[in-house]
Every structure is written in structure tokens, then in C-alpha cells.
């Protein structure tokens, strides 16, 4: 992981610096003399060469720090440690809705292939993938907040605040899980071992649960892992619509203002999360499918 991180810091640092725009122009707002701009650049260390700036950043990282935001002067680490748990709660909640429901509907759809239930579920899942969250989010808000008055429309807080953004965020993942589950279950159903199980006289429910679903889970878990990894890096649109204080909005604001320490901090944390989630998915594969070995030589 260490060489990967070193590579990531180098690539992200160069990309960030290559962006057009200058954070100092944002800091001084609408009027400032060239001397003041130079002075602030010097304070930020932006007058040094990019190589020296990178060296400075790596030294900072080695001390376990992410620096302070150019604009708010707050510690990036402290900000991320507030926003990451929020993002995590949103991601967990969205997955808690999407995963069971998606697998269930996909399974139903596959079992009823070609029938009305399958057609309806397929149609809904296609629209779930196609509808952008800023539209579905606003509709859900109008329904549950304005009309029914069940849930608050925005804010960061407890479960009441969480439900709407989580539901909104879960929709695209829910839809793709339905589709993946349907396809893989249809594949597995035709396998010889399912026929064998039937011939052994097992109940249909037992076959579905133990033989079909378990064997169909690998691609499903891959999709869950990918979606979850991206949720953990923040969901800008959902967070913006519902005023949720997560990593996505934080990173986006950093990018818009060219707040380099914030951008770097978010990218770094994001990378670590993504790698960890993928690692976790690999470990889960091993438990679900004994053919997948953590050590290739073990046989």
C-alpha cells in the first residue's frame, strides 16, 4: 500500500498543480495589489518550485498531518474527521437499502423471467439507472417533506435527516444491483449442479437460497463494493440537495476554490478508502467462494 500511496500523492499533486486557476485570486477576492498577492503566495509557499512544494507536502504527510485549508485556515485532518463519519453513515444507510432490496428484486425478476413481475422490475431498474439523483432527490423531498411532512428536507443529523438522502443515493445502486443479480441468477439456474440439487429432491426454496443465490453473489458483491467505495468518497449532488455535510461537498468546494491542501487531503483519504474497500471485497470473496484463495499457492 505504501508505494501505491506514494504514487498517488505524486500523481494527484501534479494534477492539482496543473489545474488552471490560482487560489490566491480567490483569497484576495475582488481587489488587491500585486504586492499583497505576492506576499500571500510567499506565506503559502506557492512561490517555490513545484518539486520543492511536493517535497514539503510529503514531509508534512510523514508527520501525519494534512495541512490547513488556504481559505478557512482550519486543519484539513480535523475537517475530514468530522465529514468522513457523516459520509460513512450516508453510505451505510444507502447500501442498507440498496443491497437487500436490489438482490431480492433481482432474484424475483430472474425467477419470473418473461412474466409481468420481471417486466415491471426491469422497467423500474432501467429508470432507476437513468434518472439523475438531483431529480429523484427533489421529487422525494417534495413528497416526503413538503406534502407528507414526515421527514426534514435538509440538514445533517440523526436518522430522520438521513433517510431522504440515503434513499436518493441508494436508487442508482439499487437499480444496478437488480440488473446484475437478475443476469447472474439466470446464469446460475442453468448450471448442472442446480439440476443435480433438484434431482436430489431438495426444496425449491433451499435450492434458491443455498445453491443459486450463494453462487450468484460474487458479481453482486463486486458491484456492492464498487458502489460503496464511491459512496465513501462522497456524493456531491445528494449532499448538496439535502445539505448533508459530507466529504463530497467538502472536496468539491476545495476543487472549485483550488484549495490545494483540501483537494490533496480528500484524494488521499479517498484512495485509502477505495483500496481498503476493494481489499475487503476480496476477503469476502474468499468466504463466499472457496475457489477464490487469498494465497494462490495454497491448494
Amino acid at each position, binding site marked *: 500500500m505504501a508505494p501505491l500511496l506514494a504514487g498517488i500523492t505524486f500523481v494527484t499533486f501534479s494534477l492539482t498543480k496543473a*489545474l*488552471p*486557476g*490560482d*487560489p490566491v*485570486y*480567490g*483569497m*484576495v477576492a*475582488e*481587489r*488587491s*495589489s*500585486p504586492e*499583497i*498577492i505576492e*506576499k*500571500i503566495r510567499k*506565506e*503559502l509557499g506557492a512561490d517555490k518550485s513545484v518539486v520543492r512544494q511536493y517535497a514539503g507536502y510529503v514531509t508534512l504527510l510523514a508527520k501525519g498531518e494534512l495541512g*490547513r485549508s488556504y*481559505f*478557512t*485556515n*482550519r486543519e484539513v485532518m480535523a*475537517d475530514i474527521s*468530522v*465529514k468522513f*463519519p457523516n459520509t*460513512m*453513515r450516508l453510505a*451505510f*444507510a444507502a447500501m*442498507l437499502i440498496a443491497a437487500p432490496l436490489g438482490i431480492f428484486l433481482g432474484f424475483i425478476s430472474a425467477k419470473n423471467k418473461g412474466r409481468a413481475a420481471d417486466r415491471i422490475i426491469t422497467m423500474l431498474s432501467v429508470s432507476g439507472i437513468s434518472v439523475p439523483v438531483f431529480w429523484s432527490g427533489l421529487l422525494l*423531498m*417534495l413528497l416526503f*417533506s*413538503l406534502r407528507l*411532512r414526515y421527514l*426534514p*428536507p*435538509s*440538514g*445533517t*443529523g*440523526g*436518522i*430522520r*435527516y*438521513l433517510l431522504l438522502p440515503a434513499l436518493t443515493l441508494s436508487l442508482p445502486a439499487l437499480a444496478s444491483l437488480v440488473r446484475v443479480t437478475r443476469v447472474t441468477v439466470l446464469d446460475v439456474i442453468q448450471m448442472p449442479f442446480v439440476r443435480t440439487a433438484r434431482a436430489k429432491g431438495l426444496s425449491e426454496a433451499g435450492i434458491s437460497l443455498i445453491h443459486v443465490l450463494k453462487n450468484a453473489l460474487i458479481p453482486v458483491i463486486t458491484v456492492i463494493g464498487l458502489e460503496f467505495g464511491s459512496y465513501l468518497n462522497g456524493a456531491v449532488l445528494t449532499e*448538496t*440537495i*439535502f*445539505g448533508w*455535510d459530507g466529504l463530497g*461537498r467538502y472536496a468539491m468546494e476545495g476543487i*472549485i*476554490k483550488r484549495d490545494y491542501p483540501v483537494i490533496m487531503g480528500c484524494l488521499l483519504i479517498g484512495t485509502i478508502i477505495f483500496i481498503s474497500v476493494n481489499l475487503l471485497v476480496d476477503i*469476502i470473496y474468499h*468466504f463466499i467462494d472457496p475457489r477464490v484463495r487469498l494465497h494462490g499457492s495454497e491448494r
Partner: protein
Amino acid sequence: MKRADLPIFFCLCLFFLSACSTGDRREGHLHVRLNVNPTTLDPAHIVDVTGGIIAAKLFNGLVRLDESLEIIPDLAESWDISPDRTVYTFHLRRGVTFSNNREVTASDFKYSFERILDPAGKSPNTWVLDKIAGADEYLKGKAGSVAGIEALDAYTVRLRLAKPFSPFLNLLTMTAAYVLPQEEVGKRGNDFSAHPVGTGPFILTEWKHNNRLVLERYEGYYDKKAKLKGIVYRIVPEDLTAVVEFELGNLDVISIPASEFRRFRESAKWKDLISSMPGINTYYLGFHCGRPPFNEPKARKAVSLAIDREKILATYYENRGRPAAGPVPDLLRRWASPEPMPYDREAAKKMIRETGLQGRPLWFYVTADQEVIDIAEIIQDYLEKAGLIVRIKQLEWSAYKAAINNGEADMFWISWWADYPDPENFLFPLFHSSNHGPGGNRTRYTNKTVDFLIEAGQMALNIPGSAKSYERAEKIIVEEAPWVFFWHKTDFTLRQPFVRNYKIYPIYSIDKGLEVSF
């Protein structure tokens, strides 16, 4: 996963879901929407309006503005100005305390002002105070303190200017000139912004980044106390979400998003609860006056003539603004308005042919904001009908700003909002040749006579004197047309029926939150 692990997993999930919850409304508190998190609440670093709105509730300066934009006493109860307008002596009120209960004295002002000008600091607001004698030397690290800032005794502050500057008192109403307690800044250092301590009518008690800020009334405020118990600022980035929050009664005041304006104005329930205020701002299209083709005033005028600005204002904005005749907003102009440039497509076509503008693509830079893009496309259409080729280039804010500061664009769309209510604020930064680029003069307009007139206005000993110079400067600027002057926008807010004495102010620093009540 073993079956026994599942319940534990779900318990963990539930724990995450239910962790920390926040209450809804706070009794006696005004709930106001902000669309962004204030960047900082440290007066040395505030450059955004959102920060300024909140800082006005937490801090005070020597003087402040009243609703009619006149300078009135704040922490200084009176002041004397020397006949040559270079020495300002302020007599402080006694018994004014910071919210840590310490009395404000003259040395606090010296400390606070020098903090802005600190050679080791990175305050972008040095321009507010750099007119004071000795500020330059101090900024460059050549002096141990600013010679022109003196605490004569505990209750007298004397500020000496290097040369007369007619809007100087206006500068002192700004965020950067608020007074801060040295001991608190010393204690908090870089984190003063998160724990601001001032003399204002409110105290910050909670700041959940990107979520909300809570202000409580300061009982020891020197003047009459606020009627509200406090103010809750909720950060709601999305306009439509804010409208839903408002309709549910979770917000008491919102500014009306353009898309919802007509609905509220035509609603019997809401139309009487709309407040409006002509804003002190000017929206304009700027030309790069430093290179062809727009170094020719005739070419700039041709573009100006080709656009029907009043029509755009009437249709696209449903007249939520006033047409601009020149750069100075109508509220600040103490002289007759210049003759606005008419809309005349035929005359424009003729001038375009004469100047050879046709046939070459003109780059029009705009920010990637839907409203701005709409306006840019309307302008593009007008100009193409007059025979020009216009290429729109959208950039997001940081890249856009760097591009126009560096003079990449032939034409660009931007606005200017008052820092303080003096015509000088709409002339010196925007048209004086010393401010090319990031100083504010992004058109790189250069005219020695205009420079001289603006400087004369700054040095004038009285308001009529400065107005005379500014009037002449504005006349020349309108004739030479470095901008196409579009409009001054009007702000609209909507309040709940139970909010009383609510007012909308032309400049955020005026609003100390003292009058509004339930």
C-alpha cells in the same frame, strides 16, 4: 459471514445511523438561510459577503453605517477631523466590553489595525487600512509599528493619513476595521475564526461546518440589546431545498431564488411578505481595452449599441433591477445620471463595418453558472445579428478569475458589489490605471484624465468637491465605454408572517440584527 455475525453487523449499522442528532427550531431564534458556509469569521481574512453578514453581528468598529448610508458613531461616540482631512481623532465610548467581559480601550484598535497590516500575516484586506501613514513601512517589515495609529489615552484613538482620502470613514465601517481582543487572538491563534470574540450584539455559540451556526444574544452589549434571543444560520446550498424548508416553516427568511420569484409574487399568501432593496452593484460586460480590437473606443461602442439591455432586464429578469447608465449605482450617484447608450442595431452594424470587427472571432469569457450562461447566450445572439462572431468560453470561478486577471479574454461578464457606499468604490478600483488585473481594473482601461479626476475626488476636502470630480470621471468613462453597462440588481427576500420589523439593507454591515423580532 457466519450467521451469528449478522445481528452484530446490523447493530453496528444502526449505531452509525442513529449517532448524533440535532434538534429542529430554537425558540426565540430567527432562522436564516445561508447558501454557503462562511469561509472564515476572522475579520482579517473575511472577503465574502456571508462572512461579513455574520461578522457584523459579532463585532463592532469605530463607526458604522445607518440605513440611509450615512456614517454614524459605533464604538467611537464622536470624532474630530483636522482641516486638512489627514488626522482623525476618535473618542471612544466608555464601558464597552468584549464578550469575555473586558473593556475595550484605544490600544485594542491599535492592535486590531496592525494585525491586518502585519508583515507576517496573510490578510487580503490590507487595502482597507493602508492609507494610514506608516502602513507601507510596517507592511514591508521596515517599522516596528504603524506610526499613524496612536492610542493617545485609554479612550482616544488617533489615525493619521499619508494624504487626504475622502471615503476614509467609509473604510472604517468594513469588516477588516472591527476591533478584536488581543488576548483571545493570542490564545486561539489560527483557530480564532472558530472561536471569535468581539463586542457585537451576538456571540457565536455553535458552528457546525457546512451545517449551521448558532448565535446567542450578548447581554452585555453596549447599545440597546437585540430583541431576538439568537439567530440560527442554516447552510442550505440548494435553492429549491431552501424554498421547501421555508414553506415548512423551518426558515424564517430566505432570499427568493429567481425560479420561484413569480410564484411568490403572485401568491396571495406571500406577496405582502416580500421585501426588496435596490442593491449597490453594477453588472457589466468588460472589454480588454489594452489590445486590438477593443483598444478602439469605437469598437466597444459598436458592441454596446448592438445589445438591447432593457429588453433583457424586462424579460429575463422580469425587471428585478434597474438599467445602468454608467458604472456608479444610482443609489450612490450625487449628480445627474449620464445619458445611457441606446440600442440601435443599424448604427451598430455600420460601426462594426467601419472598425473591421466583423469576420474575426471574439472570445467572450463567462463563469459556468446557469444564469450567466443564459445571459451570455442572449448577448451572443444580439451580437451575431449585428454581424459579429462571438465564441463563449465557460470556465469555473478560479480558472475564470485567473484568465480575466491575466487579460486572456476579449470580453467578459462580471459584476461589482459595493465594499462601502461611496462612488469612489465604483471608480478607483475599476478604472484607475494603477489597478490593472487583480486590483479590479480587469479591462486594463487607461486614461490619464480619469486617473487624475479619481485622485482629485479622493483628495477632495468635502463631498460636493469629490462628487464634481467623480461626475466628470464617470462622464468620460461612459463616453469611452470600457464596459457595456448592464444593470443594478435588486434583492428580494421573503419572510414568515410572524417575523416583525424585518428589513433588508443595501450593505450587509448595516444589519446588526437589533430590530427584528417575533
